[in-house]
């Protein structure tokens, strides 16, 4: 369980030309950038590395996430950002989906669906809708239910979503991700897409198609768009059950950082467990890469 040595860091730079970053807990916490991260990202870019950002946060579109990067003064191209809201829309696009999608989630999912040319209904617009004492009419054009983190979750939305899934033939059950909690705000975690998905799943008894980490779909989408393959990629993140599991599921190398959800003690507790999927490398913070900055530039 040793932390990455300078040699390890040089090795990472040699072997991997595409670096994929989780955001919350890896690059920033709430509105605060983690120390050294901005410089380390710049180092990668200067060394000619491809840099991509993958977040399971479904509440914002990739366009809205770029605004956050801009506020934190991190240079980024919108095409380098993958939110789970985007992955849900990308999935539907990839299967030639032409119907309507009912959303149990935030504005970000609605925006990504619209950007993909898919008609989105529900979402925050349904937050104040209530069931009355008679059957509710289901739009027969709804061919998919998309669930993400939903601060506006309600009995109406869960029921309406479940009725679409049970009564519209072939209606797809899509989950942006199944994380139980998320750091949507700095000081505290709040219920994630996992809560929304579990509420609907309890009614319909169907397994959802998960489009975000750790599903392989999101990686195929990323690789296709950026002409790369998993063997050249390293995933940097703070969560064992999404970031590191995703690496193991898809063939990317993995670097666990301890600036977010997983602390030193959590890792120590898991390390010896049979079946535990170990990260290839561990660093206290991604910013620590700056320790080899001079050597890396000299070697380039």
């Amino acid at each position: 369980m040793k932390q990455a040595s300078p040699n390890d860091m040089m090795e990472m730079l040699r072997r991997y030309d595409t670096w994929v970053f989780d955001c919350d807990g890896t690059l920033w916490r709430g509105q605060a950038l983690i120390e050294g991260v901005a410089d380390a990202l710049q180092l990668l870019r200067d060394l000619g590395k491809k840099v991509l950002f993958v977040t399971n946060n479904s509440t914002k579109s990739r366009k809205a996430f770029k605004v956050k990067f801009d506020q934190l003064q991190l240079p980024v191209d919108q095409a380098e950002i993958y939110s789970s809201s985007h992955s849900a829309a990308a999935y539907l696009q990839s299967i030639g989906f032409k119907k309507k999608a009912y959303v149990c989630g935030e504005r970000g999912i609605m925006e990504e669906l619209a950007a993909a040319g898919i008609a989105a209904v529900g979402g925050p617009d349904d937050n104040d809708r209530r069931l009355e004492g008679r059957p509710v009419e289901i739009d027969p054009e709804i061919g998919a239910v998309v669930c993400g983190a939903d601060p506006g979750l309600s009995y109406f939305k869960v029921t309406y979503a479940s009725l679409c899934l049970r009564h519209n033939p072939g209606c797809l059950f899509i989950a942006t991700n199944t994380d139980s909690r998320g750091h949507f705000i700095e000081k505290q975690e709040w219920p994630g897409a996992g809560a929304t998905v579990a509420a609907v799943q309890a009614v319909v008894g169907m397994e959802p198609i998960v489009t975000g980490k750790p599903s392989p779909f999101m990686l195929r989408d990323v690789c296709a768009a950026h002409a790369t393959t998993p063997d050249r990629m390293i995933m940097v993140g703070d969560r064992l059950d999404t970031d590191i599991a995703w690496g193991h599921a898809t063939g990317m190398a993995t670097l666990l950082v301890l600036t977010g959800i997983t602390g030193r003690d959590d890792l120590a507790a898991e390390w010896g467990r049979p079946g535990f999927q170990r990260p290839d490398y561990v660093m206290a913070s991604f910013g620590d890469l700056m320790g080899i900055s001079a050597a890396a530039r000299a070697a380039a």
Partner: protein
Amino acid sequence: MVPVKAAAGGQGTRRATLEDKMKLIDGVDCFIFDCDGVIWRGDSVIEGVPETLDMLRALGKKLVFVTNNSTKSRKGYLGKFTSLGLNINAEEIYSSSYAAAAYLDSIKFDRSKKVYVIGETGILEELDLKGIKYLGGPGDGQKVVNLKPGEYMEHDEDVAAVIVGFDRYINYYKIQYATLCIRENPGCMFIATNRDAVTHLTDAQEWAGNGSMVGAIVGSTKREPHVVGKPSGFMLQNIAEQFNLKPEQICMVGDRLDTDILFGQNGGLTTCLVLSGVTTEEQLLSPSNEVHPDLYMSQLSDLLAAKQTLKVTA
């Protein structure tokens, strides 16, 4: 004395003969009834039920009416029974709202602690009757969440149990509050009144059931709840203890194989299916059905056939 179970034993089920009915009534001291499909259908009482209940009472049998609905208290449900012309007492109703309070009572819940309730007034009323303090309930249905920077939810550290019942006012605030209690208060219990997938608030359409509220909390905490309503065993154990009876002396009468009958069998009860609800004789006798009640009959009032022979003066 277990004549009914021994007679049916291991060879599947059979339609109750007169002799079966008499042995059933003779050997069973307590009848537990599911309500929908057994006592009533929607808003109409099923033919012959009032006379059958009167007969069983006259013979000294204990009667219990079980419902997984948690929105009303036992007293709150009494109104439905009396409006259908059924004479029963609130204490004969076993709602899942009552089950939650009875469970906490049975484990000697520390009365200096509190319960956080996701659910409607039924649970709150039953907790009041057991002298248990609570937070949450319908009042939290008005609370809207804004995930702004600097936002932070405090929670009461004295909450030692979260009860999740059916809640038409479920929202993100309640999910977070319950999650914080479960994750951060050491030893905090997670109790569910039941996990039914759907509910029949309208006859024509199935809406999300209690399982969805429970699902949201399971999804957010990654913890499984202790279920106190059907099909968990607590309800049956509690009833058996209350009346000081052995399981075989109790008969579960229901219309659903996978909830009522299986529920009764798992508790060691004698079981009787009635065909006045959702299950047809064809489904019951189908080779693919693996749940075999000890006996079955068309409807509860079939028991009245035994009245003359037992010389009941009701």
